[in-house]
């Protein structure tokens, strides 16, 4: 029986925990199988949860979030017969599959779309807490934008430094309005619950929003340019399907592997022009064949464009 552990954000975080949940639910629906799930409640519980699940025989055990990395490194060797999967972090153990996403590539595409949709040549990015992972989104987005409009302007805000940074839609809304007042007409939100406020304010202000992680296009049809989806659900689905045979090693979910994408559906198809679609396809191909390299912020903590 597989198991899924959500990080502190909880499984309905409108973000990647929720995406993981969707994958598990889909797996259960399609296979009729059952799985265990846990939500973290405190830092100290991580190890507890892993061990207890391993001891109850759950296999594989999938966990979301980089915060598990450290603990998993410690726990995995104690349960060599159990397979573990960790999302967003590389853990080098013989029985661990590390799934990482190339968020910078998806964000790059979102940046291209934003640049083409923008009439003011100014777009915005709003992140939750100022941490490296979110800079990865930011940097990819900025690169994509600049590839179309090198002279354009990307406004950047982060919400805060406490956990409240992920749950403050009011602040998110005000940040979005501040960016709009500086001319931004497309705003990309990578901020959990705060992002809900961002997208709301953008829709209220008649501008365009870009969602993150899950497909958030349905939140404000007509005002959502797209969502940079991170197919955590696929990763979980695949892992559950592989079951005890889960392959160890690093699994890169990139553009090519459909790990990241920009969501285009009924809610936003009117906003995606033909040129935009062409540009996306082109960029996708270029990234796939390596002729365009999107820089990953994580490799050196810098971003080539600013």
């Amino acid at each position, binding site marked *: 029986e597989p198991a899924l552990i959500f990080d502190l954000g909880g499984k309905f975080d409108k973000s990647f925990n929720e995406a993981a949940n969707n994958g598990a639910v889909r797996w259960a629906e399609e296979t009729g199988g059952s799985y265990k799930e*846990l*939500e973290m*409640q*405190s*830092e*100290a*519980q991580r*190890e*507890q*949860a892993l*061990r*207890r699940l391993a001891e109850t025989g759950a296999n594989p055990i999938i966990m979301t979030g*980089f*915060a598990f*990395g*450290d603990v998993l490194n410690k726990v995995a060797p104690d349960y060599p017969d159990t397979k573990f999967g960790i999302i*967003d*972090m590389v853990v080098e153990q013989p029985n661990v599959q590390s799934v990482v996403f190339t968020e910078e590539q998806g964000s790059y595409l979102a940046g291209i779309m934003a640049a083409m949709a923008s009439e003011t040549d100014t777009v915005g990015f709003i992140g939750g*807490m*100022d*941490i*490296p*992972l979110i800079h990865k989104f930011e940097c990819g987005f900025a690169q994509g934008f600049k590839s179309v409009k090198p002279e354009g302007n990307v406004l950047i805000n982060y919400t*805060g*430094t*406490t*956990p409240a940074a992920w749950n403050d839609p009011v602040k998110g809304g005000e940040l979005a309005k501040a960016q709009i007042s500086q001319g931004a007409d497309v705003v990309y939100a990578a901020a959990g619950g705060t992002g809900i406020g961002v997208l709301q304010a953008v829709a209220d202000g008649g501008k365009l929003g870009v969602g993150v992680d899950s497909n958030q296009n349905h939140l404000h049809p007509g005002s959502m340019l797209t969502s940079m989806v991170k197919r955590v659900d696929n990763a979980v689905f695949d892992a559950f399907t592989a079951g005890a045979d889960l392959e160890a090693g690093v699994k890169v979910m990139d553009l090519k592997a459909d790990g990241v994408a920009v969501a285009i559906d009924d809610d936003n198809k009117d906003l995606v022009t033909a040129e935009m679609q062409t540009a996306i396809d082109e960029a996708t191909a270029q990234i796939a064949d390596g002729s365009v390299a999107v820089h990953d912020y*994580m*490799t*050196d*903590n810098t971003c080539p464009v600013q």
Partner: protein
Amino acid sequence: MDKMPKWADVILTPLISLFLAMAISALVILAIGESPWVALTTMVEGALGSSYGWGYTLYYTTNFIFTGLAVMVAYHAALFNIGGEGQAAMGGLGVALVCLAFPWPHWALALPAAMIGGALLGAAWAFIPAWLQAKRGSHIVITTIMFNFIAAAVLNYVLVNMLRPVGSMDPASARFPEGTHLPKLSDIATIFGTEWGKNTPVNITFFIAIAACFLVWLLIWRTRLGYEIRAFGKSEPGAMYAGISPVRITVIAMLISGGLAGLMAINNVMGESERLVLNAVEGAGFIGIAVALMGRNHPFGVFLAALLFGFLYQGGGELALWTSIPRELIIVIQALVILFTGALDNMVRMPLERIFMALRKREDV
């Protein structure tokens, strides 16, 4: 002279209050369509039913003892320290800096140094609000709240930009060297040939916490400084009359308070995660307020209240992990426990007093 015997006040009242809190909690659980009995057994089983549960319960207890003592010491000087959260966070930074500064050969050397590091930074974080209150009259409640936010910002900056190993996603410091790993209680049990609390985070800091309870008790009720702190807390004009300097006591009491909060980091940062993560304190600073107030600002009370909250934390964690009951239920139960034992205690005490008075009258007749 008292209205009822001391044992009734100290034991009976809290027990009945606790019972009331549990009864209302049961109603809440029923209301969300779950079984209170299952919830209770899961909690008790998960927190106290095995050495494993105890290991976690005592781990959380240790955290709460430190923050509870921190609030308590300041409270005796009539200072309401809401800044335990920030002080403990900065204590974590102190511990991390000490642990990472040097390839420590043995934990016995690292521990005292880390304690100093944690206490020092925690105290430093309390010093500014204390000094501002003593010298400039800035209200300590506001400044300590502000310092919680500022600590979060500092920590965020330091972790992301300075302590984070390059290439790591995680805004956390590197792992501390082997020589700083504190013995867990399970390791100690192994020495005695028994298996207890395997893989639980409770470590020797628990004993340090108990020692801290005792030392704080000595400090407050047996030393001159404690006498001065209590006198100042009860009456500032009185303190002036007795030659006790308000500035000195305000600053010292807050330094001790902040130091105690900072010491918590020995447990969670050095003992448990063995590296510094962003939100290491996880609200223990705020729970410390409840612990101190419920513990009636006495170290023994603080110990019991910390144990109660440790139980709620661990039992609640188990509840959230293994049943479909959302983890927020625990927050509600904590709230009810705080409410009934801490704020509505007179609801129980008043009728009890009447009963005891009536009993006494009958004896007199």
